[in-house]
C-alpha cells in the first residue's frame, strides 16, 4: 500500500470511528427526564398539557416528558403548600398564584431565576416581549423589584360576559331605550364603553320574574341582570372590590411603599368606603345567592352558563367552557367586552382591575439536567409560535408579539378585550403574610356583603388588622 493510500485509509478509518463514537456516545448520553408540574385543573393548563404531549420535543435529544398533576382549583393552594412544605420534593415546576410568591420564596421553595435569565439571551428576549404589568405581577418578589421568580403560564383579566341574544334583541333594545333613555349596548365596541352606572341599569332592566317576557319568550323561572364575584372563599370578593377601590382613586396597602406605606387611613379612606359602598349596592341586582356570601367565581360562571344571568364579570379562563355547547346553555349567545369602568368627573373612563392568571415557577431542588430541560420547556412554551397555538386553542398570551398581532382577535371572541386590559392591571400583595391579610379581609367584606356590617366598619376593621399584622411582620414602621 502506498503512503497516500495508507493515509487515506487511516483518515477514513478515523472519521468513521469518530462518527460512530459520536453517534453511540450521543445515544448513551440521551436521558429520560420527567418534569413534574403542579397545575390547577382548568382549560388553560389542560391546553398546555395537550400541546406539550403533541408537540414538545427537547432540543437536547433527551426524552423529556412534561407531566402536569391536575388539582382542582378549590384545593390547589392547600395541596401545593402541603407538598412544598412537607419536603417530598414532588414537583419540579408549579403553576402558582402571584400572591403566593413571597410565602414560597421565603420558604426556600421557588427558584430565583435572575442568573438563568442573565445567561440566556433567548429568555431575555422573552422578558422584553412580555407586557410589563405581567412581569411585575408574575415574576417579582418583593413586588416590582428586580428579583425574578416566575414566568407567565396563563395571564388572565376580568372581562364582561354578556348575552348577545338579549342585549341585541330589538324588543329589549326598544324597551331599554324607553326606560333608561339611551341605547342598550349590543356590539363588543359599545359594551367596551360601559361604566358602572350603565351596569347598574342592566341589573335593573333585566331583572324579570317567572312568567315575565324576556326577548319574546315567557320565563319559566326568575331571571337576573348582573353578577360579579362576592364569595367568602379564597379571594372571591377582594378581586372585584379592589377594582372598585382603584377606579375610585383609593388604594389597598401598597407593599412597594414599605416600610413607610400605611394601612390605617389608606385602606379605610373615605374614598375607599365610597368604592366599597358602590360595589355592595350593585349586589341587589344579582341572584339571591349573592346575599349568602357564597357567590364566588364558580357560582356566577354556573349561573351564567345555566342561562340565569344577562351579564356577569368573570376571568377569561372560564370563557372556553362558556362557549362549549356541551357545558353551556348560552354557548352561542355570549359576547365579551372589557370590564366596566368608572366615569370620572371629566367624562373619561377610569380603568383599573385586579390581575388574574398565574405564573409558573421552578422549585429550588430542580437542578442539573432537569433544570436545564425545565428552562428549555419554558422557552418553548413562551415562544411566539407555541403561544400563538395556545391562544388559538383558547388560552391567553402575555407576549406582545402574540396578543398585539393582527390575527389575535380572530382566535376567540374575548381576545379583543384582553390586550387593552393588560395596561390597567394591578396586583395585590406578594408578601409572605398575604394569606392572613386575605382571609381577614374576605371575612370583613363578607360581613358587609351579607348585611352584618357597613362598608366603613368593614374597611376600618381591615385597616386595623393590617396595621397590626404588618407592623408585627416589619412591613410598616
Amino acid at each position, binding site marked *: 500500500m502506498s503512503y497516500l493510500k495508507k493515509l487515506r485509509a487511516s483518515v477514513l478509518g478515523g472519521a468513521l470511528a469518530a462518527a460512530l463514537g459520536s453517534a453511540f456516545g450521543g445515544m448513551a448520553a440521551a436521558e429520560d427526564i420527567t418534569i413534574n408540574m403542579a397545575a390547577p385543573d382548568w382549560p388553560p393548563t389542560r391546553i398546555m398539557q395537550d400541546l406539550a404531549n403533541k408537540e414538545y420535543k427537547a432540543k437536547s435529544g433527551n426524552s423529556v416528558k412534561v407531566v402536569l398533576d391536575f388539582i382542582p382549583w378549590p384545593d390547589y*393552594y*392547600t395541596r401545593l*403548600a*402541603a407538598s*412544598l*412544605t412537607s419536603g417530598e420534593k414532588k414537583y419540579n415546576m408549579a403553576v402558582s398564584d402571584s400572591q403566593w410568591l413571597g*410565602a*414560597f420564596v*421565603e*420558604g*426556600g*421553595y421557588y427558584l430565583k431565576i435572575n442568573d438563568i435569565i442573565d445567561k440566556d439571551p433567548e429568555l431575555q428576549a422573552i422578558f422584553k416581549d412580555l407586557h410589563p404589568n405581567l412581569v411585575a405581577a408574575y415574576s417579582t418578589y418583593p413586588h416590582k423589584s428586580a428579583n425574578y421568580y416566575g414566568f407567565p403560564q396563563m395571564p388572565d383579566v376580568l372581562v364582561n360576559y354578556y348575552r348577545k341574544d338579549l342585549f341585541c334583541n330589538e324588543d329589549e333594545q326598544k324597551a331599554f331605550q324607553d326606560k333608561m333613555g339611551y341605547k342598550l349596548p349590543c356590539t363588543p365596541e359599545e359594551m367596551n364603553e360601559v361604566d358602572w352606572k350603565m351596569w347598574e341599569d342592566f341589573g335593573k332592566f333585566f331583572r324579570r320574574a317567572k312568567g315575565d317576557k324576556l326577548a319574546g319568550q315567557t320565563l319559566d323561572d*326568575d331571571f337576573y341582570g348582573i353578577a360579579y364575584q362576592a*364569595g*367568602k*372563599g379564597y379571594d372571591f370578593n377582594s378581586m372585584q372590590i379592589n377594582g372598585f377601590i382603584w377606579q375610585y382613586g383609593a388604594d389597598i396597602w401598597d407593599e412597594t411603599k414599605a416600610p413607610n406605606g400605611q394601612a390605617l387611613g389608606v385602606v379605610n379612606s373615605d374614598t375607599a368606603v365610597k368604592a366599597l359602598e358602590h360595589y355592595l349596592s350593585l349586589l341587589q341586582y344579582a*341572584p*339571591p*345567592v349573592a*346575599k*349568602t*356570601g*357564597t357567590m364566588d367565581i364558580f357560582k356566577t360562571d354556573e*349561573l351564567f352558563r*345555566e342561562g*340565569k344571568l344577562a351579564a356577569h364579570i368573570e376571568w377569561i379562563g372560564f370563557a372556553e367552557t362558556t362557549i362549549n355547547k356541551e357545558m353551556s346553555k348560552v354557548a352561542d349567545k355570549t359576547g365579551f367586552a372589557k370590564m366596566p369602568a368608572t366615569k370620572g368627573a371629566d367624562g373619561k373612563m377610569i380603568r383599573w382591575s385586579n390581575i388574574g392568571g398565574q405564573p409558573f415557577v421552578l422549585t429550588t431542588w430542580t437542578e442539573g439536567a432537569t433544570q436545564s430541560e425545565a428552562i428549555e420547556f419554558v422557552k418553548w412554551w413562551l415562544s411566539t409560535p407555541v403561544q400563538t397555538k395556545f391562544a388559538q386553542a383558547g388560552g391567553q398570551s402575555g407576549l406582545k408579539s402574540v396578543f398585539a398581532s393582527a390575527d389575535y382577535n380572530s382566535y376567540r371572541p374575548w381576545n379583543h378585550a384582553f390586550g387593552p386590559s393588560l395596561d390597567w392591571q394591578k396586583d395585590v400583595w406578594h408578601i*409572605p403574610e398575604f*394569606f*392572613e391579610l386575605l*382571609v381577614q379581609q374576605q*371575612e*370583613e367584606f*363578607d*360581613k358587609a*356583603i*351579607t*348585611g*352584618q*356590617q357597613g362598608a366603613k366598619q368593614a374597611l376600618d376593621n381591615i385597616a386595623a388588622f393590617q396595621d397590626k399584622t404588618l407592623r408585627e411582620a416589619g412591613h410598616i414602621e
Partner: protein
Amino acid sequence: MTTVATTKPGFFERFFARHRGPLLVSPAILVLVAMNIFPLFWSFGLSFYKYRANRQAEPVFVWFDNYIKILSDPVVWSRFQTTAIFVAISVLFQLIVGFLLAVLFEKQFPGRRVLLMLVLTPMMLSFVAVGAFFRYYYEPTFGLLSQAIKAITGEPFIILQSPAGAIGAIIFADVWMWSPFVMLLVLAGLVSVPKHLYEAAEIDRVSWWRRFRTITFPYIRGLLLLAVLFRTIETFKLFDAVFLITEGGPGTSTETIAVYVYRVAFQYFRTSESAALGYILLFVVVVLTNLYLFFVQRRARET
C-alpha cells in the same frame, strides 16, 4: 426395632415459637409508632417552638408562648363558642332523632328492611358528597329548599344569609348525616331488652313512661352515653360540613375551631401555633372522654 429420627429445632424456629404473639403484632405496632405515636410526640415538641413551615428560619424554643398566645386570643375563644353551639344543639337533635328512629325500627312492619337501609345511607356517604349536596340543597336560585318554599311564598328562601340560618343549616346537615348512627346504638339496646319484662309490665298495667324509665332506659343508658361521647367528640371536630356549605360564613359566624386550626396551619402557616392549638383541642376531648367514663363508672357503682 425402628428408630425415629428427631431433629432439634433451629434458633429461628425456637425464637418464633417462644415469641409468636409479640412477633405477630409487631408490624402493626411499628406502623402505629411510625404513623401515629411519633408524629404525635413530634408535633407536641413543635408546639413549644416558634416555627413556620413556609419559612427557612430555624425553630426557636419559646416554652409556653404559643399556648399563652392562643389562650389569650379572643378569636380562638369566639371559635370555641361557635363550636360549643354546634355541639350542644347538633348532638341533642341527633339523640332525639336517633332515639325516635330506633323506637320506630324496633317494631316489625312491612318494608322495614328497605326503609332501615335508606335511613342508614347518610352516615355511609362521604363528607364531601354530603357537603356538596347540602350546598346545592340550600342554594337560593336552583336549590330544592328554596324552590319548595318559593312555590308557597313566591320569594326565594335564603337560609345562608343570616348567621342563625347558616348555623341551623349546618346543624340540619349534621343531624341528617349522624342521627342514624345514634339510632343504631339505641336500637342495639332496645332489642336486647327481654320481652318477658314488657309482658310482666303489661300484666301489671304499668304506664308507658314508667315502663320506659324502669325497663327500657336501663338497657339503653350505656349505649346512649356512648353515642353522646362519640358524637360530641366528632361534632367538636366539625370541619367538612362547615367548609363545604358556608366556608365559615356569613363573616365568621359558622367558623368552628376545627376550621380555624386549618386556617392557622395551612393558610397562615403558623405551624407551631397550630400544633399547640391541636393539643388544646386534644385536651378538651380527653376531658370530655374522662367525664363520660366518670359518669359510666358512677352509674355502674349505683347499680
